[in-house]
């Protein structure tokens, strides 16, 4: 009896194992995974990892060069850059998570409804999505910030809202693919309500591409939020945020390169990590795309 169960369970397990196996064989993906893990560890354990208080300033040591005690040097207010960079991972993780939550929670239902009902509903929602996509890149987020005012919460809301159309499109296309499958038809034929079909069948089945995509979008979310921080539209000082730190160091680039260099390097490495992992994940999940 147990053997039969084993056999029945096997395909599902071997599929995810296969994906993991393929993922582990790609060096670049593994490098990405390591970077992402380091990022997560710094964010979670920042108080234990930081050498100094990220807010403690010392005007006597403004722009001090890297040293043993302050490995990445000190910033324009004499604060420890390494400690601020480590704490900055927290803000980036928070922003990334919130942005994606907003995008998925608002975008996915929009896409599912659009695909499920079709017709006029689909047309109206799709024109709305088109309109939002007509704001290139970071522009919609910038406009929203202009209206909402600067600050961390507003950055998360602004970037989150500007990712809605991406998730709406994604959910729509995955629902379109499964909408006419037999299990959906079967559910409808036994009298399930639209709401129930959406909740029980369409939502769970369209979720996996969205989850994969959202890991990839962490990179974009972090990049955009740092951009807004750099423009001085993000979190209020003195909270350490990578974009804002870079902006602070920009003015001193001629005399103290390290103040702007290291926070930027952190953004770059973190985004690279998510991109490497994302690329690997996509190839591992769908070997056909691997070219």
């Amino acid at each position, binding site marked *: 009896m147990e053997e039969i169960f084993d056999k029945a369970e096997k395909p599902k397990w071997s599929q995810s194992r296969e994906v993991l196996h393929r993922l582990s064989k790609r060096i670049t993906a593994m490098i990405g995974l390591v970077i992402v893990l380091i990022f997560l560890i710094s964010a979670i354990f920042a108080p234990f990892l930081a050498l100094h208080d990220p807010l403690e300033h010392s005007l006597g040591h403004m722009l001090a060069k890297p040293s043993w005690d302050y490995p990445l040097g000190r910033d324009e207010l004499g604060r420890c850059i390494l400690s601020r960079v480590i704490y900055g991972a927290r803000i980036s993780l928070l922003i990334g998570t919130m942005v994606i939550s907003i995008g998925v929670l608002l975008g996915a239902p929009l896409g599912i409804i659009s695909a499920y009902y079709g017709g006029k509903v689909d047309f109206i929602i799709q024109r709305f999505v088109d309109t*939002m996509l007509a704001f290139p890149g*970071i522009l919609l987020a910038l406009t929203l910030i202009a209206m909402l005012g600067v600050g961390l919460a507003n950055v998360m809301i602004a970037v989150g809202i500007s990712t809605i159309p991406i998730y709406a499109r994604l959910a729509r296309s995955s629902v379109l693919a499964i909408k006419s499958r037999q299990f959906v038809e079967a559910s409808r034929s036994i009298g399930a309500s639209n709401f129930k079909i959406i909740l029980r069948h369409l939502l769970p089945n369209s979720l996996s591409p969205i989850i994969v995509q959202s890991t990839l979008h962490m990179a974009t979310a972090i990049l955009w939020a740092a*951009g807004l921080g750099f423009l001085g539209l993000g979190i209020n000082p003195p909270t350490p945020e990578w974009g804002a730190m870079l902006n602070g160091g920009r003015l001193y680039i001629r005399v103290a390169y390290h103040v702007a260099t290291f926070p930027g390097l952190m953004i770059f490495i973190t985004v690279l990590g998510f991109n490497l992992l994302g690329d690997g994940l996509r190839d591992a999940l769908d070997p056909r795309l691997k*070219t």
Partner: protein
Amino acid sequence: MTGQYIIRRLLIMLPVLLGVSLIIFIMVRIIPGDPSMVMAGPHATKDQVEQIRTQLGLDRHPVSQYFIFIGNLFRGDLGTSTRTSLPVTKEIMARLPNTLLLALASILIATVLGVLTGIIAGVKQNSKFDYLSMLVALFGLSMPVFWLGLMLMLLFSIHLGWLPAVGAESFKHLILPAITLGANSMAIIARMTRSSMLEVIRLDYIRTARAKGLKEKLVISRHALKNALIPVVTVIGLQTGTLLGGAVLTEIVFAWPGVGRLLVEAILARDYPVVQGVVLLVATMFIFVNLVVDILYAYLDPRIRYQ
């Protein structure tokens, strides 16, 4: 057939344009608090606030406000900057050529280098060049524009002294900002060209071309390239959007006097008419570029028109 396609595309564009204007219109008017009070600033007198309210037409019904807004738009009237008291159109027009120059230079660099790299990487799949260029492309994709700009400035302006760091006085001033802004798009175009090339190279008609004894160079340039570049055109079109967005950051880094910098200045000063004007202009430009790309796409790939 092509004419009909263009007309259809134009018709689809209209609601998007209206939608964009409506979104911007609503956004400016749902500013928390009273927009006219926010715009007038904390030290404004009651009369000044009232004046701005009338100026913006905020004392009218929202629907009629929107129609006035659209009517003004068609007459090229985007209102007056609350910061400089100049017409918004004038403010934008003074800066627009700089942004267009920067964007064009960037897209040119990105396209030429991106497509070339992509072709070579695709043709020589799994070669050292392939690995190295795709690694560099991935770097380009992950690099924050503003950081890359600063690092280039650090190297080429401050250490080597070859190029000016900030300003827009000469051709030399254009080089660093254009590379900075184009880097990201270059990476995306290179990756896209490569994968598109790899797909096309495996098709039967390429095998036929090779089988009939055609030289590899001709197979690539005459046969493969034509089809491989079709999807690249779309990516280039989409990249203009990324460029227009990235221009904001690049212009700040290099103190480039374009509309991106104008936008940030306006946001920080809560100069809503300018914000509204710049966003409307950039979004419209993006929509038009994509229209052109769609038409070009249909021209390059006749199958599109019949769908």
